[in-house]
């Protein structure tokens, strides 16, 4: 239908003291209300100003044939004026079909919603600490579950050794072990040289250069060899494991394994764990030897011959010292492989998540290595191992 101008609207204003009635008749929309609105409001203002508060206005809607948003706005305007002056307004004979409309147009409620006070974006310190603790607890839970899964898969590997993926194990061991030899030897060599020089400078003042051999060999075998190797492995292999498994997680390959009926712990984690266990002690023994050799070369500059040096080393180092270092690096190997795989499995979605996992793997394994090293130092001190 075209624009409808053959409809009319009438508003009949009658006031008597503090009571007034407004009788609305006809079709109320934006077009028909034009003049009515201002004249009625004028009537109301005059009436309100002469009668003051406690004015009661009732609007009779019995004769209304049509009412839309404009009509509702008109009524609400009257109501506001009424309330501003301290009076009241009642609606009489409102057709039921307009009720939802009235309820819908509640301008105050819709335009100025009361803020839900229990919702706030800014977090205070206590809240952040609480959240942090919660996340830490969740992470600890996941790690505990992971340790359990690994333990059970190692049990499985002992029972069914032929089902372990030995091919993967060898590949990982070559990649993490053989390929790490150059960097491990370089670092061990330099550590040996530096340690020998530094201690020789101090001991020379007392004429005790011969004891450099004892000092250097003991600290390398017990402490520095395993620790430096572990740090290098954490940087190389822990990050690599996290990135490899992380990429598979992001690409849904891990999900594909699971739906194909394969346990990703046995399939992906176990070979890496076993490789870590094998590689870390071997590498650390290797770095021990390189370090001591470097120290003996350095001491040539102080006129201490090889023979003297090695005599002193053999007298100082017992099997216990070597075993202590190797036990420690066995633990380090477990930590490096385990943390790398765990962070890889925890990878979120998207390529950026892989980088994040690699970083987290390195940081977590370094922290754990230092903590375990500290604990081990305490145990050695107490037990003499």
């Amino acid at each position, binding site marked *: *239908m*075209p*624009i*409808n101008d053959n409809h009319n609207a009438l508003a009949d204003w009658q006031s008597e003291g503090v009571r007034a009635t407004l009788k609305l008749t006809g079709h109320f*929309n*934006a*077009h028909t209300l034009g003049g009515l609105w201002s004249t009625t409001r004028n009537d109301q203002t005059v009436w309100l100003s002469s009668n003051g508060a406690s004015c009661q206005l009732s609007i009779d809607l019995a004769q209304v044939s*049509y009412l*839309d948003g404009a009509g509702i706005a008109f009524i609400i305007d009257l109501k506001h004026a009424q309330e501003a002056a301290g009076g009241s307004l009642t609606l009489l004979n409102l*057709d*039921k*079909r*307009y*009720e*939802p*409309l009235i309820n*819908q*147009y509640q301008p105050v409620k*819709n335009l100025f919603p009361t803020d839900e006070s229990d919702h706030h974006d800014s977090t205070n310190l206590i809240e952040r600490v609480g959240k942090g603790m919660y996340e830490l607890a969740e992470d600890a839970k996941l790690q505990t579950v992971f340790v359990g899964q690994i333990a059970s898969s190692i049990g499985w590997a002992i029972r069914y050794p032929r*089902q372990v993926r030995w091919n993967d194990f060898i590949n990982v061991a070559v990649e993490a072990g053989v390929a790490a030899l150059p960097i491990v030897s370089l670092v061990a060599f330099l550590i040996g040289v530096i340690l020998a020089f530094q201690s020789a400078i101090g001991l020379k003042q007392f004429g005790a250069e011969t004891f450099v051999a004892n000092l250097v060999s003991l600290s390398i075998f017990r402490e520095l060899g395993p620790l430096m190797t572990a740090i290098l492995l954490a940087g190389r292999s822990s990050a690599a494991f996290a990135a490899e498994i992380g990429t598979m997680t992001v*690409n*849904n*390959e891990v*999900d*594909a394994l*699971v*739906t*194909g*009926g*394969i*346990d990703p712990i046995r*399939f992906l984690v176990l070979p890496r764990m076993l490789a870590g266990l094998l590689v870390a002690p071997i590498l650390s023994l290797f770095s021990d030897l390189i370090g001591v050799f470097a120290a003996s070369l350095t001491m040539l500059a102080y006129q201490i011959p090889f023979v003297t040096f090695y005599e002193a080393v053999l007298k100082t180092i017992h099997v216990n010292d070597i075993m202590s270092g190797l036990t420690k690096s066995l633990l380090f190997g477990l930590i490096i492989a385990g943390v790398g795989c765990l962070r890889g499995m925890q990878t979120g979605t998207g390529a950026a998540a892989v980088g994040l996992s690699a970083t987290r793997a390195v940081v977590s394994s370094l922290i754990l290595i230092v903590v375990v090293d500290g604990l081990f130092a305490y145990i050695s001190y107490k037990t003499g191992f």
Partner: protein
Amino acid sequence: MSIQVNSIYKSFGDFKALDNVSLEFPTGKLVALLGPSGCGKTTLLRIIAGLETADSGQVILDGQDASDRHVRERQVGFVFQHYALFKHMTVFENVAFGLRVKPRRERPSEAVIKKKVHDLLALVQLDWLADRFPSQLSGGQRQRIALARALAVEPKVLLLDEPFGALDAKVRKELRRWLRRLHDEIHVTSIFVTHDQEEALEVADEVVLMNQGKVEQVGTPDQVYDKPATPFVYSFLGSVNLFHGRVDGEVVHVGPHQLVHGGSTVADGSSVVAFARPHELTISKDPESLGVYAVIERVLTFGATSRIELIGLDINEEKTSQNYEVELTRLEVASLNVAEGDHVYLVPKKLSVFEHKGTAA
């Protein structure tokens, strides 16, 4: 195997991914889970597969509660959007993988595996690619290999997560026809997730429409298209013209205009949204007709049909922000004699009315 899910809830932090979802997937049917991104369809699929656990609710496979059963024991085949093929294995090894890693007792002999893999590769029409690596294949080929790999372990249920989402339009079209034929051949109960309505309507036996973690409608493709149950379904499936107004007896008031609707259950006086598809509208020049006033913006004719784009006009004959679209046959357009710039009335042949749930603006 039939699948049933009962009142599944799942939320990620504050976000409700699934909100009381109950569905039944009949045996041997291909069902599409259709909805916009983030509506929870993939989450539902992963819960059925067992890759995620629901916060509450049950997954019933073959009449047995499988909520606590591990993924490995559910016997599902899962196809991922980005194929998830093992990169370091050849196509043959990828497909054979699920069989080769079985425990020795259940593992078939190497000859059986070889035959089975070649049969599967023949089924997906790619047996000539057996020795290639995944990186040497096109996207469509990779997805078919992924499907073969999923089928290798003889799953009782096949779940496909936006299987054609990463492919270009032409390959998608080919592959979905191919998937339909493949399903007719193997008849494994299958659920596939998609946000492409055309894909869902073309391929599936049954369509489940989801929005914001809830099921909006379940039905055959024809049912959901012809009788949408909710405003969401109406606007999600195909293009649509939308009128905001208020019901008053036989008509819907839209601004100063009135539209006749074919009967509705909505109470008089409540504000509504009314929908009409482009082919459910006609154009009239008669000022007495009950319709919405609009001006013709463009008339596009291709083949037998014409598409007319219009913009609404207010009482001062000025353009509003409302756009409309009408589809008429070429003959109808000729007989109406309309041209760009004409002021006309849009008269619905069929109008579906739904209560407007939002707040008044």
